[in-house]
């Protein structure tokens, strides 16, 4: 690291490292406590504690609140501490070596000059100063930023490029950069470099952004302009928000409801107390005079309101939030531990980076996926070709045996050992093509020759015989590599020649012109002079364009080839047509003149050039077509199919262009062949886009919203329209004010593709869906360009194990293969959701049943805030007696096993519709709780009322009654959880029955002579257990309570109609697939201009020049 002394950093720039850990040993306790009490629930319990300390209204002993609060606070504190430790470890990651000082990236500051080497990831925005390549060119890959896979070139300004790697010069560099303030525009940069008294204009071609990877460049030096949060990528990544689940929100609403319920209950009881005091209490003063401060029954009732507030607070149990956190933590660990989500080749297990979102995984409705690196592997493979009407490149052969049996036979890899320069990684399965090449088939030779000549690839040969191609797009690389393996090896090029080893023979072609690719032309051509002095034009490009330029004599061949192209396209391959033309020397000279004129013209040059190009790209002779497979990640189509069955909608958001994206969408089943309609929205302004959307909406529903069913849109079971059509969007569609229109159309469609998205636009799309649809969204991506949507979506998933870590570091869940998504959602998500719902229903139920008994008792105890239970029972109920069974349930329960979850993805649907826990379910819990509390109060009451033991002694005393109600309550809630548990592991047994047994042990301990005599005022229930637990009446009462509480539940479950799964409505509509994937060229112009200008030719650097064949 070298820092120029006189460098002045622009104002307002911060250091790059970010502090991630919150606590240290000293501040942990106060800070953590402060934070915890900021949570509403904890603050509430603190308030309650203070209430309890007021003797006038205290109706419970202080420890009933303090003990649970302490336990809850300490558990949360431990969890926070562990979380923070993890953060602290992840704070230091990645380091970079530098010639002078090796420094961690986190220490890099604005104004440093750093050295980057090949294949390194840039983690700051850097002004390029110089590089190893001629003209200080630096190749970078921006897949992390925009998903595009082609290489891009950056060039340093000449004044700095002279410094090369001269450290003296570099360290003496004292330029001053003035530039715009940090912003999120990835393709814009303006600045001025003031150096040696001169000003140099800087634009974004000089800037290497964070997230790029240096390619094909041995080293380069750069000046750090922006670091950390100021970098363009980070500016694009949006704000990170604290994510909370729907259940969290629901829980807060419900807790509010409970408060209201609690308040009204207390009010009613206070009114009851007022009436009682007037009618009875006042006259009862002989035996219990009012306190001195009580002057009237109204005042007494006011105090009682608060007393009941304290007693009934267990309706909002303090352990609710901490239990929820424990459950989520546990379920997150399952994700980390899952062997089936471990990716062996990269040695990466799945990782739940957030432990608070688990149950939301079971409710996902929309998945937003990145394309490059997530769905695809970013590897292009030459898969098939059609040469002169013959198809080559079948992977499997079908042998028809008798009676229609079909034998699938996988062919062996073709042996390329005859070719010493072959790429060992290349594999091809069709021997016939090799045989054709060996036989010297003219057309095949010409075909491969055109592939080896017509491109802008640059080759590198550091070790002899080991060629490395630097292609601007991976497609081109794949084609040239294919030609190389079949014996037409592109060896090297200069600005005027191309050296090809043809079947072992070295031939040098003179490069006369490169007619480079652009978006309109959708084709590229090269014109070469063969060693035989023929002039040939080779052209490759999109079939739609090229077939118009063919010579009429190719008619029949064209038809056959078009058929083949259809086949290729339906396999999801990226196709490309190849043609050639033999040029007359005189004609070429003529044309060449025109060309140079056009190139030199000052006005309207682009247009003129393309007219000149068109003149020569005519009457082409068709050679054939290629098919390239954009290799998908393993299991992507299957995963998407499964997710679709689970009614999860998948939207692909990509920065890539439309053709590529649509192609991939077909390949991975987002679009199916029998889809009825593809709507493409391409308009550039509001009006056209709006018009397109409205038109499509109408077409799709076909006026169906009135009739209930449209042409393509059967109403789904849940009442939403589900169309069998797909939508393709361009980024501009988002720019207008058409959000709602867009969303309505998009959500009707089965699949949506959004192309040309900047990172922020991706986030916008997610935000849009989040805003207008009450559905859970999940964003999955691998690169820095996905960070924004990962942060915005309810759940962000990062593909880990890639080079960049941006997406992973910002994600909530990370794993290394897209296909694990189905396991994450359908297995882990579903289980987590079910468990959480079961937990919440049961938890609310048990607390209602527990608390409302006091309300019934109020009617018999003069509304005096007398509790039914022993205070120790109240203290331990949530914390000890019932916590383990419910934790066991919510950590181990499985309603169906994983095989079934995956085989019947439809099981996922109830989660999306929030069916297992919602306000209705909560009301059910409440009613169930009220019923149970009714039974739990009145059955024991009836039993002891006016009753005595068989020896005439007391049974109807308060303490015995407490014990009977407590025991009945625990038996009932234990039975209830036993009914809820569907998956009885050993642990469930131990937890459930163990807790019940433990209750009796604690009972005998708390009511034992020793303890009670030692603290007679704290433990007052001396001997109650011994005297009451051996009574037949008591057990008869417990059994009756259990029967009365359980039977209605069992009966309800028995009679409850199962949710009928929607029958798939198949409206078969024949639709002819007529899609053709155009060749996905890079979006920009290729390297053509660079090549012809000779800038890239390394011949100028003698040390790197090691051509074995000298001219």
């Amino acid at each position, binding site marked *: 690291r070298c820092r120029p002394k006189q460098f002045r950093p622009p104002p307002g720039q911060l250091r790059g490292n970010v502090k991630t850990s919150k606590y240290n040993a000293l501040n942990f306790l106060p800070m953590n406590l402060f934070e915890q009490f900021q949570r509403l629930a904890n603050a509430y319990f603190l308030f309650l504690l203070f209430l309890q300390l007021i003797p006038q209204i205290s109706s419970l002993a202080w420890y009933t609140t303090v003990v649970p609060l302490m336990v809850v606070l300490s558990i949360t504190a431990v969890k926070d501490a562990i979380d923070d430790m993890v953060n602290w470890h992840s704070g230091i990651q990645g380091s970079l070596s530098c010639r002078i000082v090796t420094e961690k990236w986190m220490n890099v500051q604005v104004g440093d000059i750093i050295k980057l080497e090949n294949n390194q990831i840039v983690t700051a925005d850097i002004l390029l100063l110089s590089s190893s390549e001629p003209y200080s060119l630096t190749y970078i890959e921006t897949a992390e930023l925009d998903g595009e896979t082609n290489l891009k070139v950056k060039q340093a300004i000449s004044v700095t490029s002279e410094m090369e790697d001269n450290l003296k010069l570099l360290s003496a560099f004292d330029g001053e950069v003035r530039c715009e303030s940090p912003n999120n525009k990835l393709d814009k940069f303006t600045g001025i470099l003031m150096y040696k008294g001169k000003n140099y204009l800087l634009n974004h071609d000089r800037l290497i952004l964070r997230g790029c990877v240096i390619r094909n460049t041995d080293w380069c030096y750069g000046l750090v302009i922006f670091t950390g949060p100021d970098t363009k990528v980070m500016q694009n990544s949006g704000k990170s928000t604290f994510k909370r689940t729907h259940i969290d929100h629901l829980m807060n609403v419900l807790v509010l409801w409970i408060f209201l319920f609690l308040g009204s209950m207390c009010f009613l009881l206070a009114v009851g107390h007022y009436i009682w005091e007037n009618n*009875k209490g006042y*006259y*009862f003063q*002989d*035996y*219990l*005079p009012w*306190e001195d401060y009580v002057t009237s029954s109204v005042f007494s009732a006011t105090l009682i309101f608060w*007393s009941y507030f304290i007693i009934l607070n267990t309706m909002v149990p303090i352990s609710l939030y901490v239990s929820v956190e424990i459950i989520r933590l546990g379920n997150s660990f*399952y994700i980390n*531990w*899952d*062997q089936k989500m471990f990716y062996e080749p990269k*040695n990466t*297990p799945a990782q739940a980076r957030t432990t608070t979102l688990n149950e939301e995984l079971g409710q996902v409705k929309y998945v937003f996926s990145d394309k490059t690196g997530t769905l695809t592997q970013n590897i292009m493979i030459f898969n098939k070709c059609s040469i002169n009407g013959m198809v080559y490149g079948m992977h499997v052969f079908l042998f028809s045996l008798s009676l229609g049996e079909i034998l699938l036979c996988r062919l062996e890899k073709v042996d390329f050992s005859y070719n010493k320069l072959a790429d060992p990684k290349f594999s091809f399965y069709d021997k016939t093509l090799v045989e054709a090449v060996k036989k010297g088939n003219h057309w095949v030779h010409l075909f491969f020759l055109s592939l080896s000549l017509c491109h802008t690839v640059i080759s590198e040969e550091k070790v002899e015989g080991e060629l490395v191609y630097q292609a601007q797009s991976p497609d081109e690389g794949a084609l040239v590599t294919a030609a190389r393996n079949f014996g037409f090896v592109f060896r090297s090029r200069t600005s005027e020649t191309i050296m090809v080893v043809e079947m072992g023979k070295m031939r040098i072609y003179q490069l006369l012109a490169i007619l480079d690719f652009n978006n309109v032309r959708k084709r590229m051509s090269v014109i070469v002079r063969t060693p035989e002095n023929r002039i040939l034009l080779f052209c490759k490009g999109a079939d739609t364009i090229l077939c118009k330029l063919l010579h009429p004599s190719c008619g029949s061949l064209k038809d056959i080839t078009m058929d083949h192209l259809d086949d290729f396209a339906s396999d999801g391959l990226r196709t490309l047509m190849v043609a050639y033309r033999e040029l007359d020397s005189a004609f070429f000279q003529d044309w060449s003149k025109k060309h140079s004129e056009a190139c030199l013209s000052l006005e309207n040059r682009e247009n003129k050039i393309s007219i000149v190009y068109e003149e020569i790209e005519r009457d082409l002779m068709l050679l054939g077509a290629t098919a390239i497979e954009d290799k998908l990640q393993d299991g992507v189509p299957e995963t998407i199919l499964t997710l679709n069955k689970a009614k999860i909608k998948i939207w692909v958001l990509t920065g890539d262009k439309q053709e590529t994206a649509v192609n991939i969408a077909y390949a991975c089943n987002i679009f199916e062949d029998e889809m009825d309609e593809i709507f493409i929205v391409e308009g550039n302004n509001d009006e056209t886009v709006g018009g397109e959307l409205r038109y499509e909406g109408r077409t799709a529903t076909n006026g169906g919203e009135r009739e209930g069913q449209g042409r393509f849109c059967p109403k789904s079971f849940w009442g939403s329209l589900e169309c069998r059509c797909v939508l393709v969007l361009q980024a501009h569609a988002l720019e207008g004010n058409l959000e709602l229109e867009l969303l309505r159309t998009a959500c009707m469609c089965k699949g949506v593709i959004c192309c040309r998205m900047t990172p922020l636009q991706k986030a916008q799309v997610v935000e849009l869906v989040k805003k207008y649809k009450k559905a859970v969204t999940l964003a999955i991506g691998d690169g820095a360009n996905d960070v924004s949507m990962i942060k915005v979506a309810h759940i962000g998933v990062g593909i880990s194990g890639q080079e960049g870590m941006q997406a992973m570091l910002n994600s909530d869940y990370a794993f290394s293969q897209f296909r694990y998504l189905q396991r994450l959602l359908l297995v882990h998500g579903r*289980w987590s959701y079910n468990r959480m719902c079961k937990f919440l229903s049961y938890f609310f139920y048990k607390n209602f049943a527990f608390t409302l008994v006091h309300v019934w008792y109020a009617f*018999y*105890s*003069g509304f*005096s*805030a*007398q509790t039914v239970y022993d205070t120790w029972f109240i203290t331990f109920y949530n914390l000890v007696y019932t916590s383990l069974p419910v934790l066991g349930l919510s950590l*181990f329960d499985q309603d169906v096993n*994983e095989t079934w979850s995956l085989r019947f993805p439809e099981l996922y649907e109830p989660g999306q519709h929030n069916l297992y826990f919602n306000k209705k379910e909560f009301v059910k819990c409440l009613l169930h709780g009220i019923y149970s509390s009714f039974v739990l109060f009145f*059955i024991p*009451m*009836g*039993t002891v*009322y*006016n*009753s*005595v033991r*068989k*020896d*005439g002694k*007391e049974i109807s*005393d*308060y*303490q*015995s*009654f407490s014990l009977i109600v407590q025991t009945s309550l625990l038996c009932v809630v234990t039975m209830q959880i036993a009914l809820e548990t569907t998956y*009885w*592991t*050993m*642990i469930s047994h131990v937890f459930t029955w163990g807790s019940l047994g433990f209750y009796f042990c604690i009972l005998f301990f708390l009511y034992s002579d020793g303890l009670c*005599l030692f603290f*007679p*005022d704290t433990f007052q229930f*001396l*001997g109650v257990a011994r*005297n009451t637990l051996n*009574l037949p*009446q008591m057990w008869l009462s417990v059994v009756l309570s259990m*029967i*009365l509480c359980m*039977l209605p539940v*069992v*009966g309800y479950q*028995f*009679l409850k109609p199962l949710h009928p799964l929607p029958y798939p409505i198949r409206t078969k509509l024949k639709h002819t697939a007529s899609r053709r994937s155009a060749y996905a060229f890079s979006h920009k112009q290729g390297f053509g201009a660079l090549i012809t200008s000779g800038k890239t030719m390394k011949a100028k650097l003698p040390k790197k020049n090691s051509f074995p064949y000298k001219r």
Partner: protein
Amino acid sequence: MKRKSQDESRLPDNTAVKQQQLPAFRLQLSANEILSGFFATGVFCLGMGIILLLSAKSISEVEINYTEKCASCAKLREDATHFDKECNCSISFYLPQKMEGNVYLYYKLYGFYQNLYRYILSRSNIQLVGTDLKDVRKCAPFKTSENGLPIAPCGAIANSIFNDTIVLLYNFNSSTHIKVPMVSSETAWWTDKYVKFQNPTYQNLSSAFAGTAKPPNWPKPVYELDEEDPGNNGFINDDFIVWMRTAAFPTFKKLYRRLHRIGNFTEGLPAGSYSFIINYNFPVSRFQGQKAVVLSTLTWSGGSSLFLGLAYLVTGAVTLLASFSMMAIHLKLKERKTFFLQS
């Protein structure tokens, strides 16, 4: 450290817990199991109900409410200034059938709230185990007497002790009245009598309670509760202990005496004419309470409450009805299901 862990495989452990593959029993109840469970429960409840009702029927019980019958005494007690005037009240009744076996005498109070929050708390267990007579912290509003001495036993419960005395006379014939022999022992829980309540350890009980005052409502101090029997005096007086075990509901009965089965009464109470002589001290009319005396025999299931028996009977009947209707619905649904399958 990080580097090191990257070399070795980070494959998660293949344990049953981590892979969520714990061997487990899957609880799936079939329709038949549920229906037979319902039937079994119904039959059990019905049977239990019948047994309980039959045994409750075998009890004979006499309850005499004397609030109205001793109206004059009640009137007298309403005025606290007449506390020193004795008032006796005699209530005659005829027992048509003899009460066999052990007969228990209860007093029963209606509308007396022993379960009020402040009332229940108003006692000092420390005092009652005899360790510290001065500990009256929790006894508000009856902590200390007017002259500042701690009350023993302190608190509202002790102060409000039921202090009527009830004597049962057997009218052998019109002239001879035999006092039915009754004992007060073994009316309280063993744990209460011998663990929870203890007198302060002193040679002389009255000196042990020196420095304390009697509860304001009491006519005499605690050490004079039963001067004949030292095992029944002071805090360990049975009547006192029984009262101190507060009732859960405003209507309750408490065991007062047991029949001492000697002489004429070895078999129980013979049929005939009886009368209660009640020394009326406990005022209830002020708060519209009522008092009653109860004579009762007992069975294995305790007192006279019919509730459990009836509850079981009704539950059993309803369960059986429910299981029949469930079976009907189930069969109907099953029919429809098979219909669907066939079509």
